């Protein structure tokens, strides 16, 4: 429903035909809401409703007007890739508000950078991606903060909570970098940074408590001029959340890679039933998996633990088997668990491995907890095991359908992770869970909105979609959506995978879309069909001239898929294309791309 508001405001239709404002106010409103995400807009609408409820002569004041005087509110800024940082930031904002203080919650890319110099009280919750990169939504903020343009911040008080994975060498690097840089710019650290590992809550919970307490101590309660009227309750969709997922019926589970190929890619169709769930192309679906039963059994067997032994942990009491199948992370191995296991296994070898990320990182590749148990036997009691294992977390899948096309359904493209290693077969928890569901099953899901990955509001804009592998998923949604709304802009897809014959995902749909004129160009890179490997970045370069023409013509560029290599290679290829065909220096080409990103014309959904 919000997407519809976006479309109306930005459509060619004059705004005054929709809302009863004078033209200048309407234009201001349009400017005001430009770039705001779903949460901002909801907050704003509630704020406006609150204003409307006040006596007519009361003079409202802006809630967030930072000045030289002492802080009157807390700004909570987050940078989030999978939604964890966002969730924690929201929780913190709620805690602060429930203490009677005012909090301004902003995603990093919505933060007005010019206001940083007058900011007084700032909490930052930010994750670090694989190789030490910031999340997509924080690139601009981090670039600004680390650049020469960053202002001195003598009046700022702050604290940072970083999220990361200690298996990587650059664990929580972005949080650390921001923390150090703010200090360097003259800001005062309120309390120590938190560096949360995959067992997020063990660090995050105490950090959030400190943050709320310190805020209460430091900030005098400010009168809130307008109470925010909660409008969220009106949305049925919001009743299904990460914590309260909807059980979706499976309508189809179809392998879409050839049977004689090496990859097992699934097209999964779920019914939204009477959930009232809605989504926009670009959103993701969070899936709560159940761990593979054979894996749970193998762990119990190996440790000789009774599946039925009752374990109480964090106020929850369940049989051990349930803990392992429904509540605990078994397939993603992280450093803290290896350290805990090493302490029990008492084997020098394992201690040596955990000593440095350089040795740990390759060790963790392809290994799961069960491999650790098999190779380095140790005793675990049920309670310690439950306490040591990370909580199970939902997995996000970019949605592969448009509601306008697949009415009341959501489609996913899932790579079934299934490989042999260390003498045993291994599967990914969620992908295996999904790949083994059939029409008899239901799947716990919620919608994870991604306002950073949206089709152009102006449907006459061209779009360039770069989605190798299962990264093609959102572009199936995009093409469906653009066909459904009769978008006049052209659609250009770049797709790649190992083999044409076995891995051309949705091949007959793309062929039909080309025939119907719903897809205008497609360029393919099948890496292993010839002697030299060809990837999407190569086809981007090959199509450089046309690509640059499209960009100059206002096209929006989208990239979805692997963050570690693909997104970087694609970025470099785009930069080269701009250098070569735009006659720009490397720096100017980089700036060109940064401007595209700032204009929301270069969007990435990478993981």
């Amino acid at each position, binding site marked *: 429903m919000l997407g519809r508001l976006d479309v109306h405001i930005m459509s060619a239709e004059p705004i005054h035909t929709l809302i009863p404002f004078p033209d200048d106010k309407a234009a201001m409103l349009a400017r005001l809401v430009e770039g705001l995400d779903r949460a901002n807009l909801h907050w704003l609408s509630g704020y406006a409703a609150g204003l409307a409820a006040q006596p007519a002569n009361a003079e409202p004041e802006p809630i967030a007007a930072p000045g030289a005087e002492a802080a009157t509110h807390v700004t909570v800024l987050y940078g989030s890739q999978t939604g964890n940082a966002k969730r924690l930031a929201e929780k913190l904002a709620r805690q602060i508000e429930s203490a009677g203080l005012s909090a301004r919650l902003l995603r990093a890319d919505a933060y007005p950078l010019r206001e940083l110099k007058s900011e007084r009280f700032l909490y930052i919750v930010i994750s670090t991606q694989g190789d030490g990169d910031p999340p997509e939504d924080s690139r601009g903020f981090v670039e600004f903060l680390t650049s020469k343009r960053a202002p001195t911040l003598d009046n700022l008080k702050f604290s940072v909570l970083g999220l990361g994975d200690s298996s990587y060498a650059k664990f929580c690097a972005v949080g650390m970098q921001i923390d150090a840089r703010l200090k360097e710019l003259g800001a005062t650290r309120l309390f120590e940074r938190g560096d949360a590992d995959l067992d997020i809550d063990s660090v995050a919970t105490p950090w959030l408590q400190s943050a709320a307490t310190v805020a209460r101590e430091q900030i005098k309660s400010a009168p809130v001029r307008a109470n925010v009227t909660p409008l969220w309750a009106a949305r049925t969709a919001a009743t299904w959340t990460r914590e309260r997922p909807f059980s979706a019926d499976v309508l189809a589970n179809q392998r879409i890679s050839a049977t004689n190929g090496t990859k097992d890619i699934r097209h999964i169709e779920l019914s939204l039933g009477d959930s009232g769930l809605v989504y926009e192309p670009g959103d993701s679906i969070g899936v709560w998996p159940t761990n593979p039963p054979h894996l749970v059994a193998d762990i119990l067997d190996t440790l000789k633990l009774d599946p039925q032994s009752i374990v109480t942990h964090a106020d929850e009491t369940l049989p051990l088997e349930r803990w392992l199948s429904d509540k605990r992370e078994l397939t993603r191995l992280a450093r803290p668990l290896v350290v805990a296991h090493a302490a029990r296994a008492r084997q020098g070898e394992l201690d040596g491995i955990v000593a440095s990320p350089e040795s740990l990182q390759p060790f963790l590749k392809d290994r799961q907890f069960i491999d650790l148990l098999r190779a380095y036997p140790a005793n675990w009691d049920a309670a310690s095991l439950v306490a040591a294992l990370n909580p199970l977390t939902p997995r996000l899948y970019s949605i592969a359908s448009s509601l306008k096309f697949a009415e009341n359904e959501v489609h996913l493209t899932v790579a079934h992770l299934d490989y042999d290693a260390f003498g045993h077969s291994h599967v990914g928890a969620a992908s295996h869970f999904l790949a083994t569901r059939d029409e008899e099953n239901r799947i716990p899901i919620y919608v994870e909105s991604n306002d950073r990955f949206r089709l152009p509001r102006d449907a006459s804009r061209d779009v360039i979609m770069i989605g190798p592998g299962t990264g093609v998923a959102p572009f199936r949604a995009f093409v469906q959506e653009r066909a459904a709304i009769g978008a006049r802009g052209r659609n250009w897809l770049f797709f790649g995978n190992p083999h044409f014959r076995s891995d051309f995902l949705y*091949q007959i749909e793309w*062929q039909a879309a*080309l025939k119907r004129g719903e897809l205008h160009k497609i360029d393919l890179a099948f890496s292993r069909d010839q002697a030299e490997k060809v990837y999407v970045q190569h086809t981007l370069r090959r199509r450089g001239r046309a690509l640059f023409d499209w960009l100059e013509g206002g096209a929006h560029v989208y990239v979805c898929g692997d963050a570690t290599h693909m997104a970087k290679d694609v970025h470099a290829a785009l930069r080269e294309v701009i250098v070569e065909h735009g006659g720009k220096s490397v720096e100017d080409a980089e700036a060109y791309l940064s401007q595209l990103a700032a204009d929301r014309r270069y969007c990435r959904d990478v993981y």
Partner: protein
Amino acid sequence: MSTPALSPVEIIKADSRRLRGTLVESLADAVTGSIAEADTHVIKFHGSYQQDDRDRRDERRLQKLEPDYQFMIRTRLPGGVVTPQQWLRLDEIATTYGNASLRLTSRQAFQFHGVIKTELKTTLQAINATLIDTVAACGDVNRNVMVAANPLQSSAHADVYAQATQLSEFLRPHTRAYYEIWLDEEKVADSGEEVEPIYGATYLPRKFKIGFAIPPVNDVDVFSNDLGFIAIVDDGEVLGYNVSAGGGLGATHGDANTYPRLADVLGFVPRDKVIAVAQAVVTTQRDFGNRTERKRARLKYTIDDRGLEWFKAEVEKRLGFAFAPARPFRFDHNGDRFGWTEGENGNWHLTLHIEAGRIVDRDGASHRTGLREIAAIHGGEFRLTPNQNLIVANVAPDQRARIDALIAAHGLDGYRVATPLRLNSIACVALPTCALAMAEAERYLPEILGKIQALLDAHGLRDAPIHFRISGCPNGCSRPYLGEIALVGKGPGRYNLMLGADARGQRLNVLHRENIDEGDILQTLDGLFERYAAERDEREGFGDFLVRRGVVVERNQATS
């Protein structure tokens, strides 16, 4: 009354700019492994068929994948003769680009299967690099010219083979399309408008087949060809040929206007008239063949529609002379003679049985490896037989032992132990690659042979030399209508049971039971074998027996 419309393929040929079509664009289309519909007709003239793995068609549709398109490539190889060096290269091509098998066809050519579109050009270049091409191996032109394979009469064979090769060259299309598209030849001024002196702009109405037989062996099934040359040999010298015309085996189920037909002998011509005769016959068919109804377009229908006398007169008019009366000849059989035989020149020839013509490495039968190893040491040549078998030809006497050792080591010595039924069997490719197949053929052959053999064994007929042929559809690639027992595919697991051909390629079989399954096939044969065992004359073939006893009534006898 308006003129009947040309058949769609005629339009495609006419618009193809001498067989170019939009092949270049089709090859460049990266979104599909297929080529444009019209190009699927054009590419046949270049020696290739678009196919797909039919075993996977349904599952791939569900997988949102197009059919697993792939191309069959057939060589033009008059008489089926290749050098060991060529063999090695072709074998390598099969591994690199195909499905790691070589298929010997019933017209003495090689077929590669499973070549994908993106490797089609490279594969054709590799084949051409062996000095073998694929021009006109398929399509509405003269196809691969067959020549009697067994070179017992070495000098006559060499003579006939040379004439067949000349004829193959003479009838090759003149368009440069093949060389431009596949071999990157520069376009010349008349590109797309080349003069086709024999064929004209729309080529022939339908495929055209030529075979050269050397009596008393009719391994080429000469009467199944549109045009046949039966060598008249006297004291090792080829005097000339009896010319036959109007053979063809294709038919359509349920359409009485289509039928297999054996050729009529027109008369004798001296040896130097081969090319003139071929030109006269081919151009007559070019000018009078049916271009409105494709399944009635073979020469056999032109002759039947206008009369044999008319046809002979038209050909003679074009020749400028009349046929002499046919010379006497006699065919003993149309099979292969297995094992070692000595040629006139003192060299030896070894005929190997290759089941269904498929050369592939299987457990315990590493045929492909074995033949590669033989090719590596062989000083003579290889000859593909019209019955899908292989001759290691012109082996010096002192090399026999080495070759025998390799034969034994790789399980290629099946000819020693296989029963006559198995040795005399032919199967077309059919499923999963052939688009026309209605039922299994090659893949089913070993199983059905085993079951029929068991029946023969039970009736004490283990060594009965019965010719068995199976075809996945009625088009006749395995020449099923000349089998003493033949199965012609009707639907999955169902066949027409055809009985009663001779074993000389001079009498067609007839439909005995229509659209029956394996149980009915075996039950029917069981009863007939019982009678055959009890009532046959000495040395009487199974087909002859069935005709003599009136089990089947013969329908068409080749003139002799």
